[in-house]
């Protein structure tokens, strides 16, 4: 094949060769996939080259989440390759996951030959129809001469503006056909797609003025800072240092500002800290940097920061005023806007009301003293919060670069609350879609990108079973991922809501017949470990980290622990349920009739 096509060159090759060439030309080193009839020509090309490494998964959903983890931890696009029909439909969950969390994901699907499209052929489905609402854009390529241009465009759309998933559907006859390959430099670019990167200077000046006039300011940052790149996190830290403002972050934004930083209030939202939520409620100026006023963040909208003037920076114009009306909306890339903002703030000498800020911090200290993440330690039973604290300490001891992924549920919230994130791109979680089963394959993707790092999936016993088959992929590819299961034998978050909303009737949230996770690990050819008592924990975690193999760690935790603090449905930021107040009665009455209709 034409492995050496130079930049700017146009060469004749088959559609399948073009796919590999386009991957190389777009800097792709790893793809995650699963073969099948309609992608066999592409797999044949993969076999005949060494530049692009293919990671064989065990289910297409696993390929998608692995590619997401790869993308989130590297800043590069994740790439997945699946066959037609069920291959494509199994990719739908990760595509929607990537759409909601703005992850650049390029999904290449095989399709039945063009002559059979519409005939209900074997393994045919309307892939572009099915994936239209769960992608940023998608393409069905019917002519091999369009293929190179479409593939380059797919990478451009996935990675620029607000990043997101794209699908390129390639019929099998197009993979076999011969046509002209155009390199990214010469391929025609689409005029209708021009994301706006620089913020309006006047708006930024007005925003700085508003910030400078604040008496009770707060910075609320989100996943957009991570997506914007390392420079955005650096500038965010600079802005915090310059202004002395308190900062909180969404689940997706953790790590942009270090958890050890002085001005850090912890995560905000439904399971955020008391100080972060109280500060959000009482602030007089709020600046949202790359977040989207998600309903898990805002709580009750008509009581959201009722006395605040609001500034919102987002690269997606539709995010501005979608949920919360803001006074200043700045459309642009976070790094570019923050660069201007820092420059303008520096130029305006003596900006900020120092005295007001001091008394604001004094108030925040009082909220902090409430110690909203407190839990009752137990000598005999491992508390889940304790397990995560010990895992964090152990990772510090090990001194390795550490990446954390999670599944979805209580363990996810505890991980966000108790694991300290110091850098962006080191925390991978399914925030928007809330996909149980995300964390294990995501960890695989992260480990492929960072072979020497410590990659831990903080998991729940229920979530992890949704994609447990990828342990087999981890073993095959020598990816020593650590699956740290907080095993309480319940779908803990489901149970918590049943206690809150449904009179403690625990309908189907108890898992009667869990597998023996240690034996399961051994069956997959990896290491199984178990800890049942708090005093066994440190040694066991150290042994897990020291292992050069994939590990499933069955950490047996207090079965009935619940996740607090919490903003119950239908309540405002200043109506949190705190752990020491969460008696059975308080839990049962936390949500009124109106709140019960809300999730």
């Amino acid at each position: 094949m034409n492995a050496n096509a130079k930049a700017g060159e146009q060469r004749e090759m088959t559609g399948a060769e073009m796919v590999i060439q386009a991957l190389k030309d777009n800097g792709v080193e790893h793809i995650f996939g699963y073969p099948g009839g309609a992608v066999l020509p592409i797999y044949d090309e993969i076999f005949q080259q060494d530049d692009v490494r293919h990671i064989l998964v065990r289910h297409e959903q696993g390929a998608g989440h692995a590619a997401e983890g790869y993308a989130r931890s590297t800043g590069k696009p994740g790439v997945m390759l699946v066959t037609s029909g069920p291959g494509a439909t199994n990719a739908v969950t990760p595509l929607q996951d990537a759409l909601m969390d703005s992850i650049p994901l390029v999904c290449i699907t095989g399709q039945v030959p063009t002559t059979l499209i519409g005939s209900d052929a074997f393994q045919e489905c309307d892939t572009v129809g099915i994936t239209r609402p769960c992608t940023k854009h998608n393409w069905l390529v019917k002519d091999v001469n369009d293929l190179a241009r479409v593939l380059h465009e797919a990478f451009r759309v996935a990675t620029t503006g607000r990043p997101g998933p794209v699908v390129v559907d390639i019929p099998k006859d197009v993979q076999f056909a011969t046509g002209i390959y155009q390199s990214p430099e010469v391929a025609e670019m689409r005029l209708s797609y021009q994301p706006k990167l620089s913020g309006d200077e006047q708006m930024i000046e007005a925003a700085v003025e508003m910030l400078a006039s604040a008496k009770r300011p707060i910075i609320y940052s989100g996943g957009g800072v991570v997506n914007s790149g390392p420079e955005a996190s650096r500038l965010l830290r600079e802005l915090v240092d310059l202004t002395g403002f308190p900062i909180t972050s969404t689940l997706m934004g953790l790590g942009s500002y270090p958890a050890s930083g002085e001005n850090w209030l912890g995560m905000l939202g439904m399971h955020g800290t008391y100080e972060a939520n109280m500060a959000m409620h009482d602030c007089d100026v709020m600046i949202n940097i790359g977040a989207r006023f998600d309903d898990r963040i805002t709580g009750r909208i008509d009581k959201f920061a009722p006395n605040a003037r609001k500034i919102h920076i987002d690269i997606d114009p539709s995010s501005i005023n979608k949920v919360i009306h803001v006074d200043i909306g700045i459309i642009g890339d976070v790094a570019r806007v923050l660069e201007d903002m820092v420059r303008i703030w520096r130029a305006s000498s003596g900006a900020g009301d120092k005295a007001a800020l001091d008394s604001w911090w004094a108030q925040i200290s009082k909220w902090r003293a409430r110690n909203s993440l407190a839990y009752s330690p137990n000598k005999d039973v491992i508390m889940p919060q304790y397990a995560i604290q010990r895992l964090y300490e152990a990772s510090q001891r090990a001194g390795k670069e550490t990446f954390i992924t999670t599944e979805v549920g209580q363990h996810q919230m505890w991980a966000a609350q108790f694991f300290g994130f110091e850098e962006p791109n080191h925390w991978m979680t399914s925030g928007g879609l809330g996909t149980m089963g995300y964390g294990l394959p995501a960890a695989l993707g992260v480990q492929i990108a960072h072979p020497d790092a410590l990659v831990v999936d903080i998991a729940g016993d229920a979530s992890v079973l949704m994609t447990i088959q990828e342990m087999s992929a981890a073993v095959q590819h020598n990816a020593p991922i650590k699956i740290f299961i907080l095993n309480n034998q319940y779908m803990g978050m489901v149970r918590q809501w049943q206690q809150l909303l449904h009179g403690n009737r625990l309908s189907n949230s108890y898992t009667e017949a869990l597998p023996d996770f240690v034996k399961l690990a051994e069956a997959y050819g990896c290491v199984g470990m178990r800890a049942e008592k708090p005093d066994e924990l440190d040694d066991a975690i150290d042994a897990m980290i020291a292992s050069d193999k994939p590990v499933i760690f069955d950490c047996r935790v207090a079965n009935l622990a619940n996740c607090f603090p919490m903003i119950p449905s239908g309540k405002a930021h200043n109506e949190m349920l705190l752990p020491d107040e969460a008696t059975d009665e308080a839990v049962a009455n936390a949500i009124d009739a109106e709140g019960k209709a809300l999730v």
Partner: protein
Amino acid sequence: MNARHQATGSAYFIAKETERPETHTLSVVVDNEPGVLARVIGLFSGRGYNIESLTVSETEHEKHISRITIVTRGTPHVLEQIKAQLERIVPVHRVVDLTVVAHELGHEKPLERELALVKVAGSGEHRVEALRLADAFKATVIDANIEHFIFEVRGRTSTIEQFIAIMAPLGLVEVCRTGVAAMTRGPEGM
């Protein structure tokens, strides 16, 4: 400050809508490629927006550009969202709210026209009356025999509605409408 919320969409915390809904006409300029109309109407159904009328045709053949005219109804906040969401679609070049432009130019509405084919069957006095009224509406007879007429009628949506209503008791059989084509007044392009 936070009194404006979407009436539609995925809000878990639904607050009372205080704004009044308005009818606006949007012009959406798109690349004419397979699936582009599905993207546009999928957005409306997926996010719970209304479509009252939809008209689409390629308007610049060399560039393969189509112009989609959508009449929609929503509060100012929802209308702002519709425009922003449409602009996110990759093959969409631009979205112009013709109603807003018309207001800026001091007009109540943009220029809007529809065409309808209206089949009326009957005999005797009804038939004579139908023909007389069609004449009053400047409708043309484009097909007829001794039992029926097919009228072609053009005008504003309200005119078409009125014509159809009048024909109803006179033997109305079938109606086909193009949907609204719209443009702002004055020499400037969109």
